[in-house]
């Protein structure tokens, strides 16, 4: 029974990890806390839902969701963040403009969905399960973990194996120096925002499938979880984000199993508070960051 809980926690943790990976990418490269990121997840979920409802296969829903959420993320960058970059106030001002973007997206979604809660149609995902050492693993769970693994591997190859990735890391280190060396910083911004949006979009479809609900406010809890994972894994650390996502999933599963209902949130946030005090660089991150030294 415990093993089953842990397994479910790991699967949920994979989704947290994917979401936090994109959230952390933006924070790591650009130093922006994108509060509209939960809304981007919601856009992805709706895009996936619409694709499935129009009779397209599920795999295409993932692609459409990734593209739609990626485009929304890029648009948010162009409209809400890019004009602020010239001022020295981007850290605080970006909080406001991303709140504004979040309000616009959630209101539009509320209007378009008439405040309804939607479900993926029955049978969207073939209902089968494997039994392995007494554990029941559903096909959906395998798909979730596999999708997250593919996305994470893709981002790792992109950042560390390609010249685009080298440009991204150079801009994260110092946009000025990178520009002087001929890196087109604007194209780096476009790429990172698109990728982080696409990750949220895919995470949105996975969340929609896992809980079988799609509604306009579904992003907010994930945004709050995103902060937790960001700190536990270490600011700017991508490996940390993934590992911390899994850890958060496990802790949540254990809290649900052993603590009275309603106490799992206080435990998780108290843990977060303690980690900030004891080990601000996160439990997985050393002081060295993958994409950016946080204190300049």
């Amino acid at each position, binding site marked *: 029974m415990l093993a089953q809980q842990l397994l479910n926690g790991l699967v949920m943790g994979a989704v947290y990890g994917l979401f936090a990976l994109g959230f952390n990418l933006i924070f790591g490269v650009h130093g922006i806390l994108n509060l509209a990121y939960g809304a981007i997840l919601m856009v992805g979920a709706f895009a996936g839902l619409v694709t499935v409802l129009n009779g397209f296969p599920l795999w295409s829903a993932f692609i459409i969701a990734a593209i739609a959420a990626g485009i929304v993320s890029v648009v948010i960058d162009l409209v809400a963040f890019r004009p*602020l970059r010239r001022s020295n106030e981007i*850290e605080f*001002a970006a909080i*406001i403009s991303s709140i504004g973007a979040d309000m616009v997206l959630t209101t539009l979604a509320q*209007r378009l969905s008439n405040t309804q809660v939607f479900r993926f149609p029955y049978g969207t995902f073939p209902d089968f399960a494997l039994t392995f050492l007494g554990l029941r693993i559903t096909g959906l769970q395998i798909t979730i973990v596999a999708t997250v693994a593919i996305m994470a591997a893709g981002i790792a190859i992109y950042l560390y194996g390609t010249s685009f990735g080298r440009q991204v890391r150079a801009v994260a280190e110092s946009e000025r120096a990178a520009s002087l060396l001929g890196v087109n910083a604007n194209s780096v911004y476009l790429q990172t925002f698109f990728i982080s949006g696409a990750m949220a979009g895919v995470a949105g479809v996975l969340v929609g499938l896992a809980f079988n609900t799609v509604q306009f406010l579904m992003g907010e809890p994930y945004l709050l979880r995103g902060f937790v994972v960001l700190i536990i894994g270490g600011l700017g650390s991508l490996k940390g984000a993934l590992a911390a996502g899994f850890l958060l999933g496990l802790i949540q599963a254990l809290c649900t199993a052993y603590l009275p209902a309603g106490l799992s949130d206080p435990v998780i946030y108290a843990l977060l508070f303690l980690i900030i005090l004891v080990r601000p660089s996160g439990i997985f991150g050393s002081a060295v960051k993958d994409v950016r030294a*946080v204190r300049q």
Partner: protein
Amino acid sequence: MTGIFAPYFPILDLVLIHCGLALSQYIVLRAGVFSVATAGFTSMGAYAAALLARDAEMGVALALLAALVVGLVTAIILALPLARVRGVYQAIATLAFVQIVLSLMYYAEDVTGGPLGLNAIPKTVGTVHIFVAVCACLYVIIAIGRSRLGSALDAIRQDEIVAASLGVSVPPLHLLAFALSGAIAGLFGGLIALHTYSIEPAQFGFPLLVSILAMVVLGGRRSVWGPIVGALILTILPELARPLAENRALIHGILLVVIIVFLPRGIVDSLSARFKKNPSRLEPDRDVAAT
């Protein structure tokens, strides 16, 4: 977003309440502390005042004083460990604090009434009380701003290391800013509770935290009039937009983006910098979140 308390208050009272909460947020940002704990202090003050006024039948002055003290003490306790961290870490640690307070209020049903909250609180506070409270807070903050303490706070915000090397002792000033913020937030929590007949935890969550922060950043984080202007605009704007019905939040969101894109330092600070002759005032601050 800013309509959290809207169903319970007439517009003038709502503006005043938001001014108080924004001042509580302003005083920490002014000292270079990126704390978002105001919503947490507010909820604790509100519950303390509500319980004391309803169950212990305490008078309005005593209940409000108790709310203030609850906020103050909590803030001091919170400030001591948080002196170790800065910037985004402070923001996320205080966000965690708000979430802990909130979820404990949901959990401790015997005391707090759980998700339903507290009802039948005696309504003893009127517009005048809130107005006096806002004026008192403004007076204290302006007085501090004009004293040597104010210059020290500004120095810390602009560059903590330089300030420390000039002999400004940072930890006590951060503690002071936290304590003031907690006291103000607790007091206004008490005012909220005693002005309405019921309070519930959902009023004091992430949306409140975000909208208080929005008021200060939108209005301006340096001048004391920034939070006041921000609170005014973000409270009245949704009311003016009422005829737009369902498009209200949409317009609200677009306006937030447009205002901050054109006035990135906040309305008051951007405009006053534009009209000031002294170019040294135009120097941008290095701010806490940049670290």
